[in-house]
């Protein structure tokens, strides 16, 4: 029996459910933006979306392609400059949740979005780089990571630390003087991982319906810790799927005309 939703839809819905109504969320483009807008359209109507383009409290009625689409500025409570969004809003810890993706992720939730393979100066793959992520990871009250789980992405060691999770383990964030709480949860297309309260190591705590522990282990490049009380999450509700698909459809609408 195959479910009537995709693994990506399950991932997006599970990520949206992590966002609590009334909190302020620093949103990256792509999956984080989709999940945050789904949350705002379902259980968290007062979720404050903060985009690094300086749009505070954006309320887009369609999914933006970039972090600076006009719909974000048109619907924001305030549009501030880029220095202001980072210095006045992110740096002092005013944003509760940072919502990040990753090209590589290790067991301590450290993220690489810079280079893969080879040397820094001569990489096999050059990725876009840091953007706002290092300071989002450092300064938000907590971080939610949304990323598809496979061996390429879930690596024993990231090739480049673009954004710090728990560094090399317990106490590292404090030693580095990072004031935000770090990754609270990692949502993938297979399940949910959370840092162990003592070891800080990402631990599989929840499976999406129909997924097995062995599948998750096989998609993880390290010896994955699994919670003693592993649970299975709820599948997307009909309402969540309807809203998500309507949002996705807005991305495919022809954009153009002034």
């Amino acid at each position: 029996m195959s479910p009537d939703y995709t693994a990506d839809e399950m991932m997006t819905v599970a990520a949206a459910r992590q966002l609590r109504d009334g909190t302020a969320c620093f949103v990256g483009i792509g999956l984080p933006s989709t999940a945050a807008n789904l949350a705002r359209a379902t259980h968290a109507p007062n979720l404050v979306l903060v985009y690094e383009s300086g749009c505070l409290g954006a309320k887009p009625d369609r999914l933006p392609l970039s972090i600076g689409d006009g719909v974000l500025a048109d619907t924001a409570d305030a549009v501030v400059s880029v220095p202001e969004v980072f210095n006045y809003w992110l740096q002092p810890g005013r944003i509760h949740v940072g919502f990040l993706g990753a090209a590589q992720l290790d067991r301590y939730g450290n993220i690489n979005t810079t280079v893969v393979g080879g040397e820094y100066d001569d990489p096999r793959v050059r990725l876009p780089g840091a953007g706002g992520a290092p300071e989002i990871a450092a300064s938000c009250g907590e971080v939610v990571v949304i990323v598809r789980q496979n061996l390429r992405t879930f690596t024993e060691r990231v090739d480049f630390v673009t954004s710090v999770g728990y560094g090399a383990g317990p106490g590292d964030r404090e030693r580095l003087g990072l004031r935000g709480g770090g990754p609270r949860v990692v949502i993938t297309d297979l399940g949910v991982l959370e840092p162990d309260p003592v070891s800080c190591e990402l631990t599989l705590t929840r499976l999406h319906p129909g997924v097995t522990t062995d599948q998750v282990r096989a998609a993880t490049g390290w010896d994955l810790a699994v919670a003693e009380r592993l649970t299975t999450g709820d599948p997307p509700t009909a309402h969540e799927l309807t809203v998500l698909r309507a949002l996705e459809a807005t991305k495919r609408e022809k954009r153009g005309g002034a």
Partner: protein
Amino acid sequence: MAKLVSLSDGVADLVRDGDVVALEGFTHLIPFAAGHEIIRQGRRELTLVRMTPDVIYDQLIGAGCARRLIFSWGGNPGVGSLHRFRDAVQNSWPGPLELEEHSHAGMANRYVAGASGLPFAVLRGYTGTDLPRHTDNIRTITCPFTGETLTAVPALRPDVTVVHAQRADRAGNVQMWGIAGVQKEAVLAARRSLVTVEEVVDELEPVPGQVVLPGWAVTAVAEVPGGAHPSYAQGYSVRDNDFYVEWDAISRDRDTFRDWIEGHVLKVEVQA
């Protein structure tokens, strides 16, 4: 007071081979037409500065204008990689590209320091990341009041900054609104500046959320309607997201890229 100039004269006067050049505009108000004019005039050996070297720098890099890039995020927003940027870094095509890489917070603060006449900026940033390993321009500093260790980055002082805005008046006062990014700081940090605008008007009507750059703080203004396309100018146009998606295929291959530059940049008639 800013001079009103044509785009070709403005670029010819203000952008020189070997310059440190910042084209700013955070998704919104990206000065694409000015970038294309830099390509047409065959500028070489530029150090390109930009927080988000997206499609416009992909074009300048692929066209061989750049020797060095100072940046914080090099992708096609919402689409994927910048293939010309990647080809330059991974395969040195059309030439090697030296990188100096930062975070957005670091780049924004470097412009603020430049605009403020300070030698460096202080922030909480980069800590624990691998970014400081690859440039001397990310260092630590001890707060003289609390003893806390913070991060220092040097001021950015471009030879010339180029931005696009909605309007200017005949005295060269520039008005922009919507997402204002880091343009004000980038202009004030630079030794020279060129602002392209959608239109030159007799009088600037106030607009909520506007940023005004006084004409005496700007070197030259050129009227270039649609000069941000495929980026946009709030109130004048919307972002051509379809083009950003199409750029992925155009730029993936060196030949299709060269054909596109030939047809859409080099052979374009420009008013003098």
